[in-house]
């Protein structure tokens, strides 16, 4: 079974289907967040520091960092954001950008083994991103999409994933350093989207034996009671082989800990009980507040 290791300045995280689910905090991403976008456009990084600290205290294992708001020069701002966060938190960071130059600059100053988000199956992406991963010995999230866009069949997603793994192998990047994003699309526009992503997870785990992520919140986009759907989806996906979802940590951690416990990944229920106590100390109840 594949073990992906990533690290911050001091803390190493191991992603593996044998271990508890690793949560990648999604909140530092300007997509659909006006206030964050406005602050990033001003070059103000206070807000991302606050978001990072909050996510870590909510239980995030890795923090995704995307500063790509409209009008922002990511080549400058991404490394700035990364070095600012490295001073404050010791969990690994996920460098999230579609700009290869910004990724290169950020990797240059990163201390530890970074996770990069993301490489795609199209040639231009494979040619620019994979050499960076090799050069900096990083791990990377791979999206099984290509020139034709997002595939809707399990077979096509599997095919592109295998293609990315091959391209990586040719450069000497081991499959432990590739995490496949199985592409959670919204159920709001396609009521089969959940079924497809679950089948993709199952197939990729079985045939390629790699670690798997999804942007979990996408699944519920446009629907009411999003947290309910996100939590239920995560439980189903983790039981199929999802190992490191990108999530709003505070909103899903209780379900994730519960499913880890159910799946035998939480020795003596220690993590589950610890989180329960933490919630209780904060004055929260024992169940998912946002569900009610």
């Amino acid at each position, binding site marked *: 079974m594949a073990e992906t290791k990533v690290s911050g300045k001091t803390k190493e995280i191991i992603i593996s289907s044998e271990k508890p689910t690793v949560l990648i905090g999604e909140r530092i991403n300007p997509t659909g967040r006006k206030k964050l976008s406005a602050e990033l456009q001003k070059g103000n990084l206070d807000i991302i520091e606050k978001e990072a600290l909050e996510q870590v205290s909510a239980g995030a294992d890795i923090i995704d960092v995307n500063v790509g708001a409209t009008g922002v020069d990511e080549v400058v701002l991404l490394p700035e954001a990364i070095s600012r966060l490295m001073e404050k938190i010791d969990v690994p960071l996920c460098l999230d950008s579609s700009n290869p130059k910004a990724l290169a600059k950020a990797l240059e100053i990163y201390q530890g083994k970074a996770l990069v988000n993301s490489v795609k199956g199209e040639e231009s992406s494979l040619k620019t991103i994979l050499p960076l991963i090799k050069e900096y010995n990083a791990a990377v999230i791979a999206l099984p999409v290509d020139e034709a866009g997002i595939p809707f069949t399990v077979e096509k997603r599997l095919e592109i994933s295998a293609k990315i793994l091959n391209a990586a192998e040719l450069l000497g990047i081991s499959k432990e350093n590739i995490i496949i994003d199985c592409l959670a699309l919204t159920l709001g526009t396609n009521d089969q989207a959940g079924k497809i992503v679950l089948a993709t997870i199952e197939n990729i785990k079985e045939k390629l034996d790699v670690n798997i992520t999804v942007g979990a919140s996408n699944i519920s986009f446009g629907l009411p009671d999003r947290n309910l759907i996100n939590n239920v989806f995560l439980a189903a996906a983790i039981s199929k082989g999802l190992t490191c979802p990108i999530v709003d940590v505070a909103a899903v951690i209780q379900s994730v800990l519960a499913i880890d416990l159910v799946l035998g990944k939480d*020795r*003596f*229920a*220690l993590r589950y*009980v610890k989180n329960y106590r933490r919630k209780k100390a904060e004055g929260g109840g024992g169940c998912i507040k946002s569900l009610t």
Partner: protein
Amino acid sequence: MGKLSELAQALMELNEFKFLELVDEKLKKKEDPLEIIKECNAGMVEVGNLFSENKYFISELMFSAELFKEAMKKLEPFLGNSKTKEQSGEIVIIGTVEGDIHDIGKNIAANLIEGSGYRVIDLGVDVPAEKFVEELKKTGAKVLGLSAMLNFVFPEMKNVVDSIAEAGLREQVKIIIGGAPCNEQVRKFCGADYYAKDASAGVTICQEIYSSE
């Protein structure tokens, strides 16, 4: 709460890393392993108390027994001439009486008692009275734990106690009953010596019995 040693405190807090490290450290300093076990016992008692007060969950009770077992593994090679409870023959026989097949509570009790250093002979579930008598004769155990989850097997619990008396073994052994529907009244009805309201109470009773010799 009396002042706990650092080791007992680490066990009470279920701080696995610190607890096992302290055991290693003490062994390196050639401290008496029996003293280390005593400190562990003090920690186990605290965990039991926290559980009884509903401050710890059952998974944590089980984890404390696991930690104690891990410590015992480290200690065993150093015990040499000093006798552990097991070697000195401190045996506890336990089982669910005939007519009842529930074993969750019984297993928890067995685990915890074993974690406290006793040799536990677990006869399983649906155990006939003769089997308890036979095992008591064979081992000379001084403690017997009877478990029941169904209230209609209370007469069977009494039957076990009576059979032990008939076999002339009643003086040899103290009998503890436990299980969700049991209480002090049931104990009287059966003629048992103790009623344990939960697994950690059972451990305390075993310690009482064996230390009062």
